[in-house]
């Protein structure tokens, strides 16, 4: 049934982030540099993770891509068109599912189509996406009746039904227990493969980032900037205890000053 999920056009969904800077003014009146000169090219159809400790500006960068905030300087473009506000081209999934509690699951998933006034033509797709995320049978449930993992699936379907060129996910699995979380990681990979959408995935979980991504962008705080970008060339499906995993993991930990160099026994 995945066939109905049309692939975005080839070459769509590439992001150009150039020299983005974001300043916040805190209540005391001093400037805080959330992002300093961040440049990054995200390829079409790529699964990229923004990884780092809290305060590194990864969520800020995601909000800028979403168009919910405006960069202080620099620019972000989607397929060479500068972003100047939210658009359904860029779908959002938060850590909190933020389902509309007054709507049933089906109506929640349909909000994107309804808001754009094309629900009547595409009503069939709502059911297809509910099926895609494995929520068949819960169409008429209200969000309070769903578990955290199910709510997050619904939130994913709600973003996907609009055929976004880019899917922006801000720690989408952060509130889930470890097992649901691993389950959902595979689920996201499955959907990403079938849809081919570019995914920007914010996380503070190193294993999650390595397991999922084509590239892991490691960011460091104060001021928020990109420390290093790791290419993960491990074949999919990946094994969670693959030896190469540990190597990349130790490198990232060193980078973030959580581990000393050349001590592989640390992991054994």
């Amino acid at each position, binding site marked *: 049934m995945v066939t109905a999920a049309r692939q975005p056009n080839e070459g769509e969904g590439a992001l150009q982030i150039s020299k983005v800077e974001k300043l916040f003014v805190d209540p005391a009146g001093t400037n805080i540099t959330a992002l300093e000169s961040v440049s990054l090219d995200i390829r079409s159809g790529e699964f990229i993770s923004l990884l780092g400790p809290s305060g590194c500006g990864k969520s800020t960068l995601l909000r800028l891509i979403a*168009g919910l905030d405006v960069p202080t300087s620099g620019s972000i473009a989607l397929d060479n068109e500068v972003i100047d*506000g*939210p658009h359904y081209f860029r*779908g*959002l999934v*938060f850590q909190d599912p933020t389902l509309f509690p007054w709507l049933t699951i089906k109506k929640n998933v349909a909000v994107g189509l309804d*808001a754009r006034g094309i629900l009547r033509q595409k009503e069939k797709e709502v059911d297809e996406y509910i099926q895609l995320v494995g929520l068949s049978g819960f169409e008429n449930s*209200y969000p*309070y009746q769903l578990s955290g993992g199910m709510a997050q699936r619904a939130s994913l379907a709600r*973003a996907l039904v609009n055929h976004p060129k880019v899917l922006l996910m801000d720690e989408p699995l952060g509130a889930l227990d470890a097992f649901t979380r691993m389950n959902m990681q595979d689920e996201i990979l499955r959907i990403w493969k079938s849809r081919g959408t570019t995914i920007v995935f914010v996380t503070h979980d190193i294993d999650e980032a390595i397991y999922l991504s084509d590239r892991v962008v490691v960011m460091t705080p104060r001021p928020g900037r990109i420390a290093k970008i790791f290419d993960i060339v491990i074949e999919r499906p990946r094994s969670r205890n693959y030896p190469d995993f540990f190597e990349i993991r130790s490198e990232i930990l060193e980078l973030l000053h959580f581990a000393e160099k050349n001590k592989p026994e640390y992991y054994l």
Partner: protein
Amino acid sequence: MLDTATSAKESSTTSFNKKAVLSESFFADGWITVLLPFIFIVLLLAEHILLQNRQPFFQKPYFSWILAVFVVIFAAAGVGASQYPSFRAKFLEKAPLLTAFTGFLIIWDLVTLKLALLPLPYFPSPAAVVAVLINEWETLGISALYSLRLLLIGYALGALIGLPTGVLMGWYPRFHYWVNPILRSIGPIPATAWIPIAMVAFPTSFTASIFLLVLACWFPITVMTWSGIANVNKAYYEVARSLGASEFYLITRVALPAAMPSIFVGLFMSMGVAFVTLIVGEMLGVKAGLGWFISWAQGWAEFSKVYAALIVMSILFSSIITLLFKVRDKVLVWQKGLIKW
């Protein structure tokens, strides 16, 4: 069930007949509770008929007739409870209340009609009030309808003005800037304080009362709608915008439903104030309605009519609140843990 079985077994060992076995097993658990309404209503009817009146009472014995009907009903309920376990459970739940209410009627009847402990005309007997309800049902009914008309028009208009005022205040800071001072200064004044001005500013007492009701309802609904809209989780807007929602969509399909629980609090508060304003308005100016009926009856010192009007008012207003709760349960079905009315 176990109790029933053992008691039945015990009974069969002795020489009780079948009927006795049945009633024993039925009375085994809470039989006195099931029978109490019947016992009390018989007591009430007996004391009402047998004791001598110490107060004048020249009405037809409607009260006795009604009590006789209830003697039959409660007896039937007792029998029904012995036959149908599901009805028994329901009746067991209601029986203490029915008993207490009947007991209250006994005391009321004793301290007024039978012992004349309370002075007339201020404290008439239940029989006198029932007689008014039956004799004057037409006047009471028409008064209730007049009250209902005034209430619904005023309430609906107040809600229709208050809702958009609250939405605009919650959505547009500029609108809030200009309207907030008006809301803050005029809102807290009880609407009934405007009666002297309303009576001269409006052509009829009816339109004056509508104005008062609108004013009374407008304030709580506006405040609760405004605070509901202002407290909506901002993430809802962000998600909706990233899904392609326009501003109109955000207001009507996100902000408004999200604020609905708060709006209903305002609707309930408004209904309470509306009842007060309605009755005071009718007592002071309008020449119809239950409020008018009460002050008119008071003028003739016919307090049995006052009590009768109070009973009608209780039924009317309680029904309206129940209806509002039903609407809320329907609209807010997505909310967990709603209180039941």
